[in-house]
């Protein structure tokens, strides 16, 4: 709607402003981060280099998966593993990614079993082809049927139940479970778990996780609609932070609790804005998935004795936040 | 007035020099020769009719004079000076205005907005420069009225007007913005008998008021009613070039229909 002269004027204006403001920020920013962070160089194993494919149902841009990948990368670096990571939130596409891994002759596969019906057959194909498979994060109920060696993760329903029990202890009456992606099995299982054990009222609210302002205003609207809500349970750290603003905006006295963590969330727990988080230790899931495969490939070890290895749930609240905070700032919790 | 075209002094042009003249103009699209060896001129108060069947090269000829395409051969002279028109805007600056078959109007926009489209009247200073809406509406209404077009609602979308009315609005617009040469592309092609009459009357009136008109048509009857010169195109070449005095309507019609070919056809279809 502007002519070229106007737009070039805008660019010029921006340039002038940049020059004028080029003074560095006195606080925050990368400089401060670099001052604070130390290195963590570990020795690399002297075992032969192996190629492991990791396939997940990560939706692009979800902070939770950062931690899984960081764990996997840390293990890969230490174990002399070439890690090939790929992901697709749609089950059929994830299945074809696993097939691609089989075709490219990897030494082992680590995958999430987000949809057992869609992924089971292709995992079995990998097993039949002699490729050891480890599953993690999703699929706690059906991982054995697919022929996988080991499973690392938490049972979403169990985690939800743990949340419900904790809410009972706290004497909560009315909890709202905020689901950021309608129809996602794991998220629904978490809310269902909460509903099972929580003796108060549990209600669901679906929000569009791709649109933060709309997440915030929908939570705000729900809090206005039902003023008796005293707990907001979010299923991801970024949504808990949005919920904190909504609770404030709605003038509600509800407390915010959440599944999963990230650095900002740890700070919010420290500040008391978020009461607690239930943690499934995604870093550990990623790390163990790769590390256990390396152990299996180099030494034939199997962890868990045929049972799923549970990485959660554990609670992070103000009492134990100090031990986690340091790692969270480093981006590994 | 915002248009610099209106100020172009007509008097300065020496009499006898054609407003627009084409000398041996040719145009190729790749390997296809669209036009070759075209000679044509139009003077003040004259109507030059360009006749021809579909695909004869009429559109290409218009596009060259209107500045939409450039010629490959020959010369294009405006007021005796050789020019190359690189855009419709440049042609307009020379006082050459084109009224296309599709009229170059935007159907959903009101008549007055269409009238001033591309040459809007504005006042105020940037960034608060705004349209002089009242002035534009009044001017458009008056100008159309002068041409004998009376519209009940100047705010009506131009798409709701009849074909003849739209044609006249387009011509009135060109005249108002200081056109000295009007190129009319098949203005009567889509019109009924009565509406064609209205348009032909304007063409005649425009010429009498001192404009040069290039009238593109495939209807020899319409051409003969208003034309001073006749140029016939066939397959990109000129097959006829004569004055009103030197030809009758029957001859023109026969030439237009392809002369001998028509006789063969008449013979064939004889009942």
């Amino acid at each position, binding site marked *: *709607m*502007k*002519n*070229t002269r106007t*737009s070039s004027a805008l660019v010029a204006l*921006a*340039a002038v*402003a*940049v020059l004028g*403001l*080029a*003074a*560095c*920020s006195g606080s*925050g*920013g*990368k400089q401060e*981060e670099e001052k604070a962070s130390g290195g963590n160089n570990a020795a690399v194993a002297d075992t032969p280099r192996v190629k492991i494919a990791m396939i997940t149902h990560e939706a692009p*841009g979800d902070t939770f998966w*950062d931690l899984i990948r960081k764990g996997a990368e840390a293990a890969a670096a230490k174990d002399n593993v070439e890690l090939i990571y790929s992901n697709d939130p749609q089950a059929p596409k994830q299945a074809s990614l696993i097939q691609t891994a089989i075709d490219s002759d990897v030494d082992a596969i680590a995958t999430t079993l987000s949809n057992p019906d869609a992924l089971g057959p292709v995992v079995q194909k990998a097993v039949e082809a002699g490729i050891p498979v480890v599953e993690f994060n999703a699929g706690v109920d059906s991982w054995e049927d697919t022929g996988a060696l080991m499973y690392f993760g938490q049972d979403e329903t169990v985690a939800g139940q743990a949340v419900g029990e904790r809410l009972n202890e706290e004497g909560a009456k009315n909890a709202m479970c905020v689901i950021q992606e*309608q129809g996602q099995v794991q998220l629904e299982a978490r809310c269902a778990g909460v509903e099972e054990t929580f003796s108060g009222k549990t209600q*669901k*609210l*679906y929000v569009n996780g*791709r649109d*933060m*302002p709309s997440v915030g*205003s*929908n939570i705000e*609207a729900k809090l*206005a*609609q039902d003023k008796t809500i005293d707990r907001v349970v979010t299923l991801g750290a*970024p949504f808990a932070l*949005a919920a904190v*603003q909504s609770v404030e905006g709605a003038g509600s006295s509800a407390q915010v609790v959440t599944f999963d963590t990230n650095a*900002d969330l740890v*700070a919010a727990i420290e500040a008391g804005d978020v009461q607690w988080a239930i943690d499934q230790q995604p870093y550990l899931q990623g790390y163990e998935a790769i590390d256990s495969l390396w152990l299996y490939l180099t030494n034939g070890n199997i962890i868990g004795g045929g049972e799923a290895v549970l990485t959660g749930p554990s609670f992070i609240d103000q009492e134990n936040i100090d031990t986690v905070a340091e790692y969270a700032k480093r981006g590994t919790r | 007035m915002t248009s610099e075209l209106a100020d172009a002094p007509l008097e300065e042009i020496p009499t006898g020099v054609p407003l627009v003249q084409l000398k041996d103009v040719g145009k190729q699209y790749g390997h296809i020769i669209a036009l070759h060896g075209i000679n044509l001129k139009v003077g003040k108060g004259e109507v030059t009719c360009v006749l021809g069947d579909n695909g004869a090269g009429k559109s290409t000829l218009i596009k060259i004079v*209107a500045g939409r395409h450039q010629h490959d051969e020959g010369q294009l002279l405006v007021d005796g000076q050789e020019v190359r028109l690189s855009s*419709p*805007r440049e042609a307009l600056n020379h006082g050459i205005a*084109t009224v*296309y078959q599709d009229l*170059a*109007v*935007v159907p959903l926009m009101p008549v007055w907005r269409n009238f001033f*489209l*591309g040459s809007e009247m*504005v006042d105020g200073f940037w960034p608060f420069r*705004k*349209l002089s809406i009242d002035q534009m509406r009044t001017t458009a209404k008056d100008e159309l009225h002068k041409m*004998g*077009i*009376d519209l*009940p*609602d100047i*705010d009506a979308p131009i*798409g709701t007007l*009849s074909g003849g009315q739209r044609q006249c609005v387009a011509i009135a617009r060109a005249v108002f913005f200081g056109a000295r040469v009007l190129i009319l592309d098949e203005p009567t092609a*889509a019109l009924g008998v009565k*509406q064609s009459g209205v348009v032909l009357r304007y063409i005649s009136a425009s010429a009498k008021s001192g404009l040069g008109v290039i009238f593109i048509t495939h209807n020899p009857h319409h051409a003969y009613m208003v034309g001073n010169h006749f140029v016939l195109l066939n397959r990109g070449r000129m097959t006829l070039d004569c004055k009103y005095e030197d030809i009758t309507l029957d001859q023109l019609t026969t030439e237009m229909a392809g002369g001998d070919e028509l006789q063969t056809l008449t013979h064939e279809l004889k009942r």
Partner: protein
Amino acid sequence: MSESPVATETPLADERVTKTSPLQKLLLRPELGALVGAIGIYVFFFAVADPFRSLDAFSTIMYSSSTIGIMAVGVALLMIGGEFDLSAGVAVTTSALTASLFSYEFSTNVWVGIFVALAVALAIGFFNGYLVMKTKIPSFLITLGTFLMLQGANLAVTKLLTGQVASRNISDMDGFGLADAIFASDFSIAGTTFRISIVWWLVFVAIATWLLLRTKVGNWIYAVGGDAESARAVGVPVVKTKIGLFMGVGFLAWFAGMHLLFTFNSVQSGEGVGNEFIFIIAAVIGGCLLTGGYGTAIGAAIGAFIYGMTEKGIVYAGWNPDWVKFFLGVMLLLATVTNLWVRNRASRS
């Protein structure tokens, strides 16, 4: 071509005889249908949902509408100009990420990042517009390409720089306070808190309306959307106008991005996907033609309001959340049909 019953060939006829009545003129406004739909939906939720009636609820709805509406203004203008921009949703995220990542990575004042983001947003708009005009490929395809490119770049660049998929928290950096006040602050009227983005939204709608109806450029926008060839033939700078429109969307994407950034202090790189359609929906509900050349900025604002009102109204009504999307679809369809019905009635009478 239609023969209008009111038009006359006879010169010197009395022009007042068949003049359109002012009422009919009002009914023919593009946004009227949307307005009727909006009132209908408002009355409906007012009747069925208690919490909907409060001023607080109105504030929440207006806020929600503003986050869509700011972009819908630019998208509506672009649609009137005859083009689409499917990259509009993720461009918002790109702007927010650019400002955040730039100022964080280089430890600059956040305003440096803000202006870099503005330059990037305008450049994206220019790129879209330039490609559409030079290649003559429909904007639907070109901007689908940019949409995917930006979606990928958002994620990849964020990961490359921060090692995670969200930008770092910048709330402790210099210049944050002022930026927060401009892009994401609150104010109170009669005890109710309103977000500043509502004000900005209304300001942008007013500017766009003025631009469309009262300026030369507005005339050109309608013309290039209505018939680009005709517009070119009478000397309208079609290419500049259209590129300008794409850059206008870029500018608003920058603004919406700044709101996103300073509201939440950090940005998820996967955000914004899918919003491009909501902007288009808002514009269409508001009376913009998908084919271009027709529509208003006010209409798009009403469209955004209908979307925000419906989305929140369902929550206020406390309906079964599993059905939310379904109800949303029904409401939007009803609003669109009402719009069409009103317009047809108006033009027939």
